[in-house]
């Protein structure tokens, strides 16, 4: 699966797409592949504040539970409530339908700390990827 060029990526395998100060956050295709079948996702509530690098929720497969880290700081304005009943959307369409939350960015400059698509692709296919997988 291609990594959209207009998204930015974290080392913890989240993506974010920003339009007009509003960011959409999700898990990357690589992350969902590593996790396997996702059975549950726990998300913040609208109105909660996220801090870049801090956990915003958790994602569970049958044999694992992992934290999801916020790529940027900001206020949650919407969550993907469809995931409550259908977490498998994250497996099926991680960069689209499987998005997690939308945030109003507090500090757009934080985007500069993230990887672009080619950098992320190198990051997950290059040497040492085993160590970086969560």
């Amino acid at each position, binding site marked *: 699966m291609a990594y959209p060029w207009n998204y930015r990526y974290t080392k913890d395998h989240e993506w974010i797409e920003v339009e007009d100060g509003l960011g959409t956050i999700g898990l990357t295709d690589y992350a969902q592949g590593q996790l396997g079948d996702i*059975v*549950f996702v*726990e998300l913040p509530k609208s109105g909660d504040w996220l801090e870049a690098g801090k956990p915003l929720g958790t994602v*569970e*497969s*049958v*044999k*694992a*539970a992992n934290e999801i880290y916020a790529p940027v700081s900001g206020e949650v304005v919407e969550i993907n409530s469809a995931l409550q009943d259908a977490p498998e959307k994250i497996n099926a369409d991680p960069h689209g339908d499987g998005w997690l939350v939308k945030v109003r960015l507090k500090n757009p400059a934080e985007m500069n700390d993230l990887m672009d698509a080619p950098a992320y692709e190198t990051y997950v296919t290059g040497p040492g990827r085993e160590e970086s997988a969560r």
Partner: protein
Amino acid sequence: MRYLPKSPAERDQMLEAIGAQSIDDLFSRIPERYRLQAPLKLPGPYSEAEIVRYFSERARENSVGYSSFLGAGVYNHLRSVVTDTIIQRGEFLTSYTPYQAEISQGTLQAIFEFQTLLCQLTGQEVANASMWDGSTATTEAVLMAERLTRRRRILVGRSVHPQYRDVLRTYAKSSTLEIEEIPFGADGTINQGSLESQIRDDVAAVVAQSPNFLGAIEDIPALAKTTHSPGALLIVAVTEGVSLGLVRPPADADIVALEGQSFGLPPSYGGPFLGVIATREKFVRQMPGRLVGQTVDTDGRRGFVLTLAAREQHIRREKATSNICTNQALCALAATVHLSLLGKQGLRELAHQNLSKAQFALAKLTEIPGVRRPFGAPFFNEFTVALPRPVEDVNRQLLGEGIIGALPLEPLYPELANHGLLCVTEATSRGEIEKLATALRAALAAVQVEA
């Protein structure tokens, strides 16, 4: 040694295959100075007959032959021989936690049945299998409420079992929980007025026990109403599961913490018992302990698996809902067999016999001058009595008659001097109750004569 299946020659063959000169070679990583040079000073080895003799001798130094009226969280109920026969089948007794579902369907299906029975009993939607006992289940229920509400104040009825409250305090000491107690009123149940004045929107949970430690049945719907208004959760501890055969189940509770000892487990000097947490489906991800779920195999056949394991310590480690690993699975199986044997009618009849005998006992005892029940709330098979003298003194005389009398309450509740807690079950005969009444009358009369 009879448990070890090797001859000396086989041991030598195996050492040779390994390439070791002697068994000591296999322990060479242990520094020489730490290796024991002399045999351990342990009694034994004992033959099977000697083991039986040792424990039979110890058994005779206990209370065999006495009539006991103790309850207080541990109940003497009749048990069918079927239960013990089933749980001693090697396939149940000597198997591990059912992680390999394909060869553990027996344990898994039995646990699924257990979860169902416990939901039916408690009026809740999901029950785990299992916690260590009622006291740790109650504490785990509080920790669960803390996670669900993200609040830290806990209000606990003083009518909750004192040892359960002790355990909660032990766990709370190393957490940020703040424990406050709610007094009981004149009828022996939680004082609603006190609860109303103590509860605020920073309270995570209210903990009640019903029937409570003093025997009184709490008004669960009323407690639920008061508890829910500021968004707190109601935890109901049940130590006497048989009561649920007649008493309205705590369906209004958000979490039920149950001690299942009454369901086929002997008193066994305090354990192993059976803790259970039952709750609403929406809280299941914050629930501790094992859960079995129904699913299908590759050919679409019904089967059962351990599920929602991502809550547990072996996956989530420091972020797990609990540290529990080994639980009380075989005790849960015993309860499943016991409850299946009792069935719908049997459980109701059992509860009815407990209720009838406890009422009979209370009537007999309160005929004695100076003996009264101080609390007015309905009770099931335990009740508090007030005597004209210290309970310990009376008990010493009862022991001489072969009777273990009421549990003295003063050490636990200083304001309840001369009060004791009595329990009567279906296993208590009318003759034993009458003998208690006669002995108590004599004990109290003797003092009047002395005075």
